């Protein structure tokens, strides 16, 4: 198929960016979206132009590095996939595709389609862990049985890949889905309960300091999340936060 790509080009954080139009030809439906971008880039390089910079690494939907806003949707029109898992068979010959970076105050643009998501790391540094040292002398792994239901829910929350699609999709650029997934995972497990109160307060405070917006329950994040992280987690985080504030 032949397509027209309208891509956000921005040389660096300080210069102004703009949408530039590129035609691409003979795109195969079996290609992934990023492989289609590779085709464009090789063409640009061999013509002596600058290729489009974009983040990507594992190309199997798990590292969370790829981050394209395609036709107004984080990771494009398919559901439950990252950009690297989006296949060109989802488009048709003659389509025009708009490709932009994640847009959020807390995710400044570095170049073209690449953004700086280190704010997520800083939220994690504030409390996204269980305070246990590496000793090899913790209790036996089976000493504390965990109800399967809790373990499964914790796992589902823990599958978040930290890509930032939730922030990009949210009209308030809120990071509630990301933060609540970690808060939930650890609050559901006995190992994480010990410091649950302290954790939720620190993570929420850092989230606010980093400039993410508030949650107004529109639910766009859940729809666009490639891992299907549930809004339930936000409710659980709010509960944890309230509990922590009252009992502080």
């Amino acid at each position, binding site marked *: 198929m032949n397509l027209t790509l309208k891509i956000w080009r921005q040389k*660096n954080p300080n210069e102004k960016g703009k949408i530039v139009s590129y035609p691409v030809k003979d795109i*195969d439906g*079996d*290609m*992934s979206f*990023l*492989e289609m971008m*590779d*085709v464009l880039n*090789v063409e640009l*390089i*061999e013509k*002596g132009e600058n*290729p489009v*910079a974009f983040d*990507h*690494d*594992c190309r*199997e*939907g*798990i*590292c969370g*590095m790829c981050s394209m806003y395609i036709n107004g949707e984080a990771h494009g029109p*398919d559901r*439950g996939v990252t950009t690297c898992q989006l*296949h060109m*068979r989802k488009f048709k010959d003659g389509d025009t595709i708009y490709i932009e970076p994640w847009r959020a105050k807390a995710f400044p643009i*570095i*170049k073209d389609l*690449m953004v*700086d*998501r*280190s704010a*997520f*790391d800083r939220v*994690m*540094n*504030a409390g*996204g*862990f*269980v*305070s*246990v040292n*590496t000793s090899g*002398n913790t209790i036996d*792994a*089976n000493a*504390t*049985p965990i109800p*399967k239901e809790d*373990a*499964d829910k*914790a*796992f589902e929350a*823990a*599958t978040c890949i*930290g890509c930032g699609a939730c922030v990009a999709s949210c009209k308030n650029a809120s990071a509630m889905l990301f933060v609540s997934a970690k808060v939930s995972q650890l609050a559901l*497990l006995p*190992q*994480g309960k010990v410091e649950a109160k302290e954790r939720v307060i620190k993570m929420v405070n850092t989230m606010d300091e980093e400039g993410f917006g508030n949650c107004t329950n529109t639910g766009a994040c859940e729809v666009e999340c490639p891992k299907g992280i549930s809004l339930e987690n936000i409710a659980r985080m709010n509960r944890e936060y309230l509990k922590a504030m009252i009992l502080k």
Partner: protein
Amino acid sequence: MDKKGQLLSISQVALILNVSEKTVRRHIQSGKLISKKIGGVHRINKSDLDHFLNPEKSFSLNDLKAEIDNSFPRENQEPDGPLVDKWSTHKSKIKLVNPANKRLIDIIVVGSGLAGGAASASLAELGYNVKTFCFQDSPRRAHSIAAQGGINAAKNYQGDGDSVYRLFYDTIKGGDYRSRESNVHRLAEVSANIIDQCVAQGVPFAREYGGLLDNRSFGGVLVSRTFYAKGQTGQQLLLGAYSAMSRQIGKGKIKMYSRHEMLDLVIVDGKARGIIARNLVTGEIQKHSAHAVVLGSGGYGNVFFLSTNAMGSNVTAAWKAHLKGAYMANPCFTQIHPTCIPVSGDHQSKLTLMSESLRNDGRIWVPKNMEDVLAIREGKLKPTEISAENRDYYLERRYPSFGNLVPRDVASRAAKERCDAGYGVNKTGEAVYLDFASAIERYGNEKAQVLNLDNLSKEEILSLGRKVIENKYGNLFQMYYKIVDDDPYFTPMQIYPAVHYTMGGLWVDYNLMSSIPGCYVAGEANFSDHGANRLGASALMQGLADGYFVLPYTIGDYLADDIRTGPISTETKEFDDALEDVKSKISKLMKIQGERSVDYFHRKLGKVMWNNVGMARNAEGLNTAITEIQKIRTEFYSNVRIPGESNELNPELEKALRVADFLELGELMAIDALNRSESCGGHFREESQTDEGEALRDDENFTYVAAWEYSGNPSKPKLNKENLEYKNIKLVQRSYK
């Protein structure tokens, strides 16, 4: 120095070639003609000049043999005493650094995956000042995250006869008797601690209804010792290590350098004292010093271009250490994983793995009859329409006792054998079926019985079975469906082997120190534990064992001598020289401005590697590979095109620097494979097989680690042999029949 060689000056070479001295200098500058600087002047080895004149001359093992030194130049530091006591005795005897002194010591860790991440967190917890580097935008994205199936541990929770000894034995046997007994036994010993530690961190492993941990079994093993978190075990373990790192970053004990790439190792007075790194966002080249450097930079499977590795996975950090004196051990040991999604076309940028755990429930087959194969390829027949007696379940046929659960190398070769014989099923003829129909039916019946449901229709039973399968492998099935657009709940998956893991890597001693003092190597980047073939679910185990439980002890033994050293200055000649080297390498690449993208050369290299240094190798193919790689390397340095500038974010420059190193590593892999004329594990030499076509090891001549030393010329490495001694295990030919 080459004893046979004769050293020539530039003017002599100019005379021989009948060109100007300037031209000779240009050839030296471009890397085409190898020269050594002796006392500040260029001297060219006669043999290098011959090579320059006649690069097509095939590599000769005789050249190599002249270089072989029979005494291994390093101690492997293996402790004395009985195998089972070695690690505990060693731990109690090695030197410690007191907590107040740890504050005075800096450690650089390169890589933030299971090995690097776990090491960073543990070392910081101990009190060292850690600086961690990764090229991704966050340490959470290291490629360990993509590991699917699980992690082994000798917990014996299932009471099925597992033990530390059995895990040790399985790992040595699975690795085809090419790993060190002492290292592997230690790995088996600490494996149980890993599970305890990860659960304490909040890693949500799969559990049974009673609340206890669940296990599954993996290839090459007769017990269930694999812990898992659906098909995302690597992700959960990595996020565990990442959270431990986050805690230390928050405390200021780890300084994190994301989007930074190590481009050289700095040696001061014979010790690793720092690195040169490039800030990938600004292009700035930086000097970083430390008392020790830990490389946890992963494997080099991307030398094949198409592999299951992430796009950015590279050998650069390890290769730079190699160029500075670290031995590269058994580089030809590559793991070709049997269950990957087949290649669909030329545009393909990477391959996707389907966890080996699928072989627990999936049966692998191809059609028995050629007319069925052809009908399938033409789209006239569906696999589900072929009756059981017309299917060849070739693994069950050839290996009745292990069946679909033979080790990876065996399963991969068997698939290649069927496809080479013409029975491959997709358009390319390079795919076999992995079929869940029997498992779906079996689980459906079990479930119906549990629920006391009689009189269910076949479809209702199958639907119950599909739910069971979905619980076990849901995300893998979804991934397959998204990529291939074919629903594996209803039709068999198509799979084909792909490069997945590299058992070879930098040589390390028992303490995980490379042949450069102060340079440690952990995880996939080292060679130590998997011999010639890695068993499933052992990579995660090794990465975490090295990072959490081995390095934090052994590195102290070395650093105990450094408590009075004080901070290492970067304002020294060694750092400045290394910095200049990196800068000039970059400017050399940027100046070429040829006609081809970096990917063009990478794909070309990958093709040579896959065809000649892939699943089956022979002397002729390996010799061809060596010549071809040299040609691609020469072409690369004259015709690559890197757009943009070096002082800005430039993904093409990043790729070029990585591919430049792959172009040297690839040749070493071929040389190593050529030298090892036996078949073992992931390395199958066609010249060395049994009458039945199984791999034939040659223990008499090859029970050693081939530790290659850089000589200044990538085509002329020096071979050092560390002999492997088996005192506790008897070497036998592997049989999975």
